């Protein structure tokens, strides 16, 4: 049972953990993500994007808010640089999420290459599942388990993207709008679950208010001004309060 981590692992064991991770993709969160990706496919079709580009977005980006930002930037005719900045800002969360997962997934001292491969599948859905379940998985099986979970989610949701693309324009508007609406609702709730300290809650609230205000005055830099501003404000508010409490 308690195989030491520096020992070479049999391929069959790796395959078993990959398989167990795969099965984890078929729970309720996976279903909600599937619905959200149906909505994304429909949104991309309504925005006039071709199917192959839409598929590529889910496969290579694998971060739903960033994909929605990219579709908006393309529809708005933004330049490559402006688009890349907007997309990369919407993906900053992937850094702290990956860092938070490293002590768990890296516990068996896996190679950096396998960690980099696994990191592509970092997204809210597998992240929440990994934080909840990875502690119960032997350290040598964790990368395989996460690869199985991430690759399976990525595959099923690429299919969802295609189905949404085909079906989105034929659905009644109320239903296709409902699918697009899943993303903001799902992410708002997921971010709240993932919030650890008061700064995180403040940042969420400030970001919800500040970014739409920034959109009205600085439509091309709204994420940067609203997001970085709101996050910094939340951090400063927390620091000031803690200092006041300490003295």
């Amino acid at each position, binding site marked *: 049972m308690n195989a030491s981590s520096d020992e070479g692992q049999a391929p069959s064991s790796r395959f078993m953990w990959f398989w167990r991770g795969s099965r984890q993709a078929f729970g309720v969160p996976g279903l909600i993500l599937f619905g959200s990706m149906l909505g994304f496919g429909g949104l991309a079709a309504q*925005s006039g994007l071709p199917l192959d580009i839409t598929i590529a977005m889910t496969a290579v*980006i694998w971060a739903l808010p960033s994909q929605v930002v990219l579709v908006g930037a393309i529809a708005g005719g933004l330049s490559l640089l402006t688009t890349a900045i907007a997309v990369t800002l919407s993906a900053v969360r992937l850094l*702290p999420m990956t*860092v938070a997962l490293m002590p768990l997934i890296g516990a068996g001292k896996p190679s950096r290459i396998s960690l*980099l491969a696994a990191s592509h599948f970092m997204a809210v859905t597998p992240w929440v599942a990994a934080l909840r379940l990875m502690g119960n998985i032997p350290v040598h099986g964790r990368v395989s388990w996460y690869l199985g979970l991430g690759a399976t989610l990525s595959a099923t949701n690429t299919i969802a993207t295609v189905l949404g693309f085909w079906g989105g324009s034929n659905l009644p508007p109320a239903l296709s709008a409902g699918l697009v609406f899943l993303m903001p609702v799902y992410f708002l709730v997921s971010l709240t679950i993932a919030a650890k300290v008061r700064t995180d809650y403040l940042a*969420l609230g400030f970001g919800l208010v500040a970014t739409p205000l920034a959109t009205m005055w600085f439509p091309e830099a709204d994420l940067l001004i609203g997001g970085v501003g*709101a996050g910094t404000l939340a951090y400063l508010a927390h620091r000031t309060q803690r200092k006041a409490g300490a003295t």
Partner: protein
Amino acid sequence: MNWSYHADLGPLWPYVFILIAGFVATDCWRWAGVFLGNSISEDSELFVWVRAVASALVAGVIAKVVLFPQGSLAQAHVALRIGAIGAGYAVFFLTGRRFVPGIIVAEAILIGGMLAGL
């Protein structure tokens, strides 16, 4: 020179655009996470700030999709969109932070409201 997605820069340009503004723009944070993973403390001041900015940025995307949507979601009245996500969020808290009831309520209000012509 217009460097937008629609620019006439050859048949491969759309893919190059997605690769740079999509793939590299998102995966760079994942790679950075792997490289920083063991050298950065989750409790450090810098990390608390990065996490706050990261949360605020996604909150900004959420607010933009609700307030300035594209596609069929734009057909719902803005008050219906805000009411639906607000009610769903309230139900999420009232049910002890379980996300399924919250999502169902938000969706039911939005879809029901649109079918009722709001």
